[in-house]
């Protein structure tokens, strides 16, 4: 089970004055159960990339294979694929439209051809799993707060029971607590359901904390692809393209420069803390030995 992108190119407004190559020769294999982060600044092609995964945008050349099947085959059901690769867009306001949250969440499964009863069952499960309090289920989606709308939108995609969940900047505009809640929710879905999760984000700190694999996009190409530790080791190169490593990564490098043996590859707060504490306790132990 995997998604394979083979030499994917995408050109906007082909053969006009506004021609832009949004994706250049993308080769990726997304394995089952991975938690992937995609970073890159605006216009780096990350949004275009994820819209290829469920066939919303068709590559100008190259192929995409979902579980070994060519999604550009004439008899491939793209509608089916969109149920399997669930894509949650940045602004929930772009998808919420029904009179109640519950009815809105039913929209996806109904489109996939489930009976009303089955769709309601799936909506029920989805709303439970995004932990939206039941009080809100039968209210208008437009009365919800930003964080609640985001949950409703994620539930609307989860209700289709996708195998892969793709989220485009799900925390934009949320306050710190709201941001943590949504990211924890996504991490939990990944952990408990072994779902493949792809998270598009601007925040280095967030991706470092949550994902197992990080893909850095720049000018339509994949610049780096690896674990956060591997990718952030290139912190100087990242800066050259207008990105940055998490704050703690810089801190660790500076500490090493000043002679404190801190772990240079720490990318999360917890790693940094452990490494600094270790450096201090080693020093402490050494001085105790010397005193003896």
């Amino acid at each position, binding site marked *: 089970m995997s998604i394979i992108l083979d030499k994917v190119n995408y050109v906007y407004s082909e053969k006009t004055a506004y021609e832009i190559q949004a994706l250049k020769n993308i080769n990726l294999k997304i394995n089952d159960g991975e938690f992937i982060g995609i970073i890159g600044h605006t216009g780096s092609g990350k949004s275009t990339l994820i819209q290829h995964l469920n066939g919303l945008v068709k590559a100008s050349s190259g192929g995409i294979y979902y579980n070994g099947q060519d999604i550009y085959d004439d008899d491939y059901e793209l509608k089916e694929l969109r149920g399997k690769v669930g894509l949650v867009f940045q602004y929930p306001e772009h998808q919420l439209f029904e009179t109640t949250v519950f009815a809105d969440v039913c*929209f996806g499964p109904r489109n996939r051809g489930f009976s009303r009863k089955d769709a309601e069952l799936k909506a029920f499960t989805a709303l439970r799993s995004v932990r939206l309090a039941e009080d809100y289920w039968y209210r208008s989606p437009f009365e919800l707060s930003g964080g609640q709308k985001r949950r409703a939108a994620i539930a609307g995609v989860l209700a289709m029971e996708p195998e892969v969940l793709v989220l485009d900047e799900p925390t934009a505009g949320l306050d710190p607590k709201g941001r943590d809640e949504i990211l924890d929710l996504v991490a939990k879905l990944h952990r408990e359901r072994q779902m493949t999760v792809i998270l598009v984000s601007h925040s280095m700190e967030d991706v470092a904390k949550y994902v197992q694999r990080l893909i850095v996009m720049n000018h339509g190409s994949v610049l780096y692809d690896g674990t956060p530790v591997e990718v952030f080791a290139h912190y100087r190169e990242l800066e050259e393209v207008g990105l940055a490593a998490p704050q703690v990564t810089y801190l660790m490098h500076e500490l090493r420069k000043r002679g404190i043996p801190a772990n240079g590859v720490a990318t999360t707060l917890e790693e940094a803390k452990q490494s600094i504490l270790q450096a201090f306790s080693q020093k402490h132990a050494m001085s105790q030995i010397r005193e003896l």
Partner: protein
Amino acid sequence: MLRDITIGQYYPADSVIHKLDPRTKLMATMIYILSLFIFRSLAGFAAVTLGLFLVILLSKVPIGYMVKGLKAIVVILLITVVFNLFLTPGETLVSFWKLRITEEGLKNAVFMTVRLIYLILGSSVLTLTTTPNQLTDGLEKSLKPLNKIHVPVHEISMMMSIALRFIPILIEETDKIMKAQLARGADFESGNLVKKAKAMVPLLVPLFISAFRRANDLALAMEARCYHGGEGRTKMKPLKYKGADGIAYLLIAVYFAVVILLRRFL
């Protein structure tokens, strides 16, 4: 397809026509449209053609670019030709099956086609050489006398310029909403008319809500920047007639006189 329509698009260039006051151009366009319905003879046709092509030449907009704009009205042109050709009573020229072409029909078809083509070409000269803002400014100032009969001229022109600014934003937004719903398995294409209309609900509801929200935000932003209607308002780019506009008005008058005289005497 949408890209082929050049009517209403601005073509940046440094020409005499571009520099004219929008009011001059509005007036000229009106006179020109009027003249299209006045000429009847070949001589009149020649005068109009001369006028039109002289202006196009002066505007420095490539003729090919303007002709491309005609693609959008090919269907209308064909219908006009067919109707005029076959449905005008008069002396039969050719007839086959149940249809017959009359001399008057042929003449009408030719003249109507020419009129339509010239109408589109002429008005696209106006839009191609005038930015939408200049155009609304020109309209506001030309229509100012209507204020006396309580037509809210300033408000109308403000609404027009805001609409012009938000059309591209709303088009982009429609695309995003469409994608968000497609991702949830929405289907905008298959089914009969009723089904298709129903499928538009998930698209239209978020679009309208967003548009209202934008309108509300914009109203606040305008108020915060001290907007309080047209009263006491100054302009960064006030419209002022220059020498060239005087000459242009003179030429317009001469042109109009010639077309009227030609109708009368030739």
